[in-house]
């Protein structure tokens, strides 16, 4: 027997899941999708129960990955008890999904979560009445305060019942559904799904499509819309029967402040800049500490010369990988996750998306994309991970390119270390300007050529609430574990590969081979390319490697201003770091990783060549 949490987005499902399961949670990727499914277990009266948290959806009759996943779980039927989590303050809308889910005829328990927030809005739900109408156990809960959460599992164990729902469908829909049910021997849910164009069975789908086309002509509405309207009417009817309206409490209308351009937009800039500031300052501090640890005993006292030179090369490469991984993971990625989790839970991100929608349109994206773009300034890794918030594959694809071009804090280190230090602040600043122009151009270009149709933003404002720090920490911990699991093996392997290549003198040979190119086209010493390649492990390493290979920390003594400038812009644009590519692979697949890599290599080299030739002409 499996216990499955199901419900709309933003109803506090994950909070309940976390509360019930404790730490033994496994986040797995649903086969063939990028959707996460959380699985955990809990002990109740000596028995182990399996609990699954499905992604929040508004409907199961859609073509999105989340919807498909939830639908597949329901179509499996069998040994499952559904724990439907509804937001009591938005009960009518939540009952719409409930009606769909209930038609699958699985035993259920209904939670009316956030009942405190509902009461503040003047919405009192008659629990006994709704329980009587739906024929299942109904528990009012407040997940944030832990109220009544202890009643969930006993109820789900003792008295899960199959709910009674009687959605009154339009008679054409009813007739079509009956025809399909009789002809193909299916029950109501698959027949209704087929009428909306969703079925694996080609015969059923063909008949259903013919029927729904007829219905559409008669009603001037698609079968999908008619069915949705019927279910909304059902939800409205039930809600009216169980609602006792009280007087809403009036507080400050924060929402008005947050969603009006004034002061909403300055506030948004302040909040996003605040996050960046925290990550920059605390992150770099922590990074310094961590990198410092690796450059002190016991690591510095490892007697590498006593080992076989190849062993020493591999060993120090592994250390280097660990340093790079931990140096990114904890200061930047973890910190970001915590802050973003807090912001996500507070409901603010949806307001920012609303405000930023128009600007983001210019890049072929929508408001939600503001988050990854801004996060990218701190670290590309969490930014790429937050791409999953975007609604369509097309948007995620465009965002993948743009986010990986955003100069992260590591690249800022390069810009500062090469240009601000040796050439001047204006030069450093101009690199940012150039990169942002390139990002805009790439966005405009991609919005023309990216596959898929452009879908606009349809985004529900998540309720504003006080975020819970413990939950944010727990979720961040899960995500960082996921990051470490993907990124570390890659980091170690590529670091060893680079170390071994270096051991066998591959880079010296490459330098010889590259000399005509590097000096001819880019005006750079060939060792700059070695530095560039090591930057793939961790972007700041470009700078460190360059210093080592140049043989002096005073780079201005070996490189001209033009060379420094060319190299800075090349290394900032050139291919994202291994960690970023690892998460990008996880989010969008290998094809996108290859495309992004090729594109950034091309842009990096092309711009560097361009700058070099312009510089030569001016000089």
């Amino acid at each position: 027997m499996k216990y499955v949490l199901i419900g709309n987005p933003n109803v506090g499902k994950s909070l309940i899941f976390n509360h019930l399961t404790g730490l033994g949670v496994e986040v797995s990727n649903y086969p063939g999708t990028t959707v996460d499914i959380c699985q955990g277990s809990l002990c109740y009266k000596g028995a182990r129960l399996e609990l699954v948290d499905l992604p929040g959806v508004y409907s199961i009759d859609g073509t999105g990955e989340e919807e498909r996943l939830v639908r597949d779980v329901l179509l499996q039927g069998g040994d499952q008890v559904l724990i439907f989590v509804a937001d009591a303050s938005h009960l009518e809308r939540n009952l719409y999904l409930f009606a769909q889910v209930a038609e699958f005829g699985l035993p259920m328990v209904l939670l009316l979560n956030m009942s405190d927030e509902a009461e503040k809005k003047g919405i009192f739900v008659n629990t006994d009445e709704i329980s009587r109408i739906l024929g299942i156990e109904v528990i009012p809960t407040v997940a944030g305060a832990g109220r009544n959460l202890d009643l969930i599992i006993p109820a789900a164990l003792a008295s899960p019942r199959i709910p009674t729902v009687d959605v009154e469908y339009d008679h054409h829909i009813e007739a079509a559904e009956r025809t399909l049910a009789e002809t193909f021997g299916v029950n109501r849910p698959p027949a209704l799904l087929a009428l909306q164009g969703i079925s694996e069975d080609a015969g059923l789908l063909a008949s259903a499509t013919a029927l729904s086309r007829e219905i559409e002509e008669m009603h001037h509405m698609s079968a999908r819309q008619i069915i949705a309207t019927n279910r909304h009417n059902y939800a409205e009817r039930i809600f009216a029967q169980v609602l006792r309206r009280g007087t809403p409490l009036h507080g400050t209308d924060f929402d008005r402040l947050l969603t009006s351009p004034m002061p909403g937009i300055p506030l948004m800039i302040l909040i996003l800049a605040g996050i960046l500031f925290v990550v920059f300052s605390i992150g770099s501090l922590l990074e310094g500490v961590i990198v410092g640890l690796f450059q002190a005993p016991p690591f510095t006292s490892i007697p590498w010369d006593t080992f076989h030179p190849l062993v020493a090369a591999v060993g120090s490469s592994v250390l280097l990988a660990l340093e790079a991984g931990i140096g990114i993971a904890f200061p930047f990625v973890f910190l970001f996750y915590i802050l973003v989790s807090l912001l996500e839970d507070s409901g603010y991100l949806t307001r920012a998306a609303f405000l930023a929608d128009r600007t983001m349109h210019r890049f072929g994206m929508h408001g939600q994309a503001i988050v990854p773009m801004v996060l990218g300034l701190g670290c590309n890794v969490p930014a790429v991970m937050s791409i999953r918030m975007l609604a369509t594959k097309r948007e995620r694809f465009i965002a993948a390119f743009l986010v990986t071009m955003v100069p992260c804090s590591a690249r800022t280190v390069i810009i500062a270390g090469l240009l601000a230090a040796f050439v001047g602040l204006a030069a450093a600043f101009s690199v940012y300007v150039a990169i942002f122009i390139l990002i805009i151009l790439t966005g405009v270009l991609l919005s023309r050529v990216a596959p898929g149709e452009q879908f606009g933003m349809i985004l529900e404002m998540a309720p504003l609430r006080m975020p819970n720090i413990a939950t944010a920490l727990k979720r961040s911990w899960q995500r960082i574990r996921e990051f470490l699991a993907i990124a570390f093996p890659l980091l170690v392997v590529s670091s060893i590969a680079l170390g071994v290549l270096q051991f066998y003198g591959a880079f010296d040979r490459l330098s010889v081979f590259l000399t005509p190119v590097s000096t001819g086209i880019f005006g750079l010493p060939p060792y700059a390319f070695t530095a560039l390649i090591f930057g793939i492990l961790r972007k700041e390493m470009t700078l460190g490697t360059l210093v080592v290979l140049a043989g002096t920390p005073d780079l201005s003594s070996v490189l001209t201003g033009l060379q420094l400038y060319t190299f800075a812009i090349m290394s900032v644009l050139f291919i994202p770091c291994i960690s970023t590519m690892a998460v990008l692979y996880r989010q969008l697949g290998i094809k996108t990783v290859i495309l992004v890599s090729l594109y950034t290599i091309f842009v990096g080299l092309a711009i560097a060549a361009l700058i070099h030739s312009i510089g030569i002409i001016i000089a």
Partner: protein
Amino acid sequence: MIPLVELVLMDSSVREDYLEAILILLRRGRSPTPVDIAGELMADPAAVEDILSALVTEGYITRGSDGRISLTNVGQDLAGTVERKHRVLQRFFMDILGMEHRAASDEACQVEHAVSDDAIERLRHLIRSGGECDIPAPVCTGRIRALPEYGEDEPLVVCAIIGHDGYERLSDLGIVPGATIMIKRKIGDGAILVRVKECDIALSPDIAGLIRAERAPTA
């Protein structure tokens, strides 16, 4: 038995009306009797009986032992074609010419017998393309405008969603024809925040522009 002469003279529009009526009655779930047909067409039962016999002879319908009527394949095809013409015409009269439901249906009943298949296809295409002309749904009676043309805090009723393919989420969130909604916030010509079923939904301007609405009737 009716004389052969009368059979030949049977107006094609009469034949089509009968077949269409039989199809509609069959759709309602049972094989109709001559009385049902007379009721549907508001015709004299005696005359109905004559014409039904003629239709049997012509091979459009068959009659069971209990007198109930079903369509042959040929009859089914003809009835389907006529019914489709009726629907397309009715939509054209209502949605594009703005005629009232009953009048549009009556008008369609007349024209459906004369109009060519090609003309119907072209009309269908015109109605489907949508973009050029507003398509008010039957729920609306007042002046219909695109959502972004309204101001904040005005109660509105959704009339139609143009080109509803791909925007299923609107239906799921309760933005369906007939729903009452209100614009809560509007940023210039940018995104729009809509309140529906006590939830706030942010819509891109391109999506909001697909939603047709009228002012809610004041209670």
